[in-house]
């Protein structure tokens, strides 16, 4: 293994490589993309040009896209062989986050729907 190859393997999350120009360029691209996505998010939230009930889902998609931009351009998570461990850890983290969030929201909504009683009846039960 050449010293150069060795160097390529020594890349941890957040650690940039290459020259000053290309490294800075990566951050500038990331910043511009993040600014665009943030701007679009605020526009989508305030416009009436988009079907109302679809706006929330659109905003979530934009947020996930922006998180991806941050991961790639700021934290330098890549699909390269030097990044396998970082990507696997990230995948596990994302799995946990989705399990916790979607699981909670689905279950609590179901409970809420099934438990909903007439306010008068609820009041009666409370008195026992």
């Amino acid at each position, binding site marked *: *293994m050449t010293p150069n190859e060795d160097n390529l393997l*020594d890349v*941890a*999350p*957040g*650690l*940039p490589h290459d020259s*000053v120009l290309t*490294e*800075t360029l990566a*951050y500038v691209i*990331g*910043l511009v993309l*993040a*600014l665009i996505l*943030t701007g679009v*998010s*605020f526009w989508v*939230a*305030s416009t009436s040009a988009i079907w*109302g009930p679809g*706006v*929330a889902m659109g*905003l*979530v998609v*934009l*947020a996930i896209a*922006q*998180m991806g931009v*941050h*991961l790639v351009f*700021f*934290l330098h998570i890549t699909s390269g062989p030097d990044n396998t*461990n*970082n990507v696997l*850890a*990230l995948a*596990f*983290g994302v799995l*946990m*986050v989705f399990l*916790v*969030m979607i*699981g*909670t*929201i689905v279950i*609590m909504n179901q409970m809420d729907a099934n438990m909903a009683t007439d306010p008068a009846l609820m009041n009666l039960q409370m008195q026992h």
Partner: protein
Amino acid sequence: MTTEAATIGLTHGGSEDTGLGHRGPESKSIVVPYGFWLFVLSDMVLFSALFATYATLSHATDGGPTSNELFSRVLVAVETMALLLSSFTCGLAIIAAKRKHMLWTQGWLLVTGALGFIFLSIELYEFVKMASEGAPPQRSAFLSAFFTLVGCHGAHVTAGLLWIGTMMAQIWTKGFKDHIMRRLLCLSIFWHALDIIWVAIFTIVYLIGTLPA
């Protein structure tokens, strides 16, 4: 690499790595940021529980103020801009630090900290304003969840600011030594992660929370 080691386990032709740790542990410059990356991911799992709580309770206002009445999109836009730019300048500080350039490193770290401070000041102003307008954390389940989620992020930013100050002092007194650089790298991972969590907060809490009902 001895021939004995090469015959064990998952050895591939041409590769010296047996996959059994025969090369020994990775260098500290790999292991330390990787461990910190695991911490940051577990921190995100913690935040996911707070997000789930907020999503469940966001309409439980108990007749009190709702998200539509409380949140100002203009303030949130300024906060978002401050934190995004600070994430950017934090990256520039790392680029300068890798070249062992003291003035640029300290300068960019200072800008990063200043932007973080602006973010935190706006957040505190918002909290105090809400509490004085009849929307303190104890008013409703929605407000409890809101202050816990956004306050937890604010506490992380506060810790990050202290860490930035510490790193500036350590770089100044000890120079760009290997262990100092590892700490600085962990700081940058932490700071970028805070911005990622903020993206989720401004989308779920502030933008979706202020959509016309």
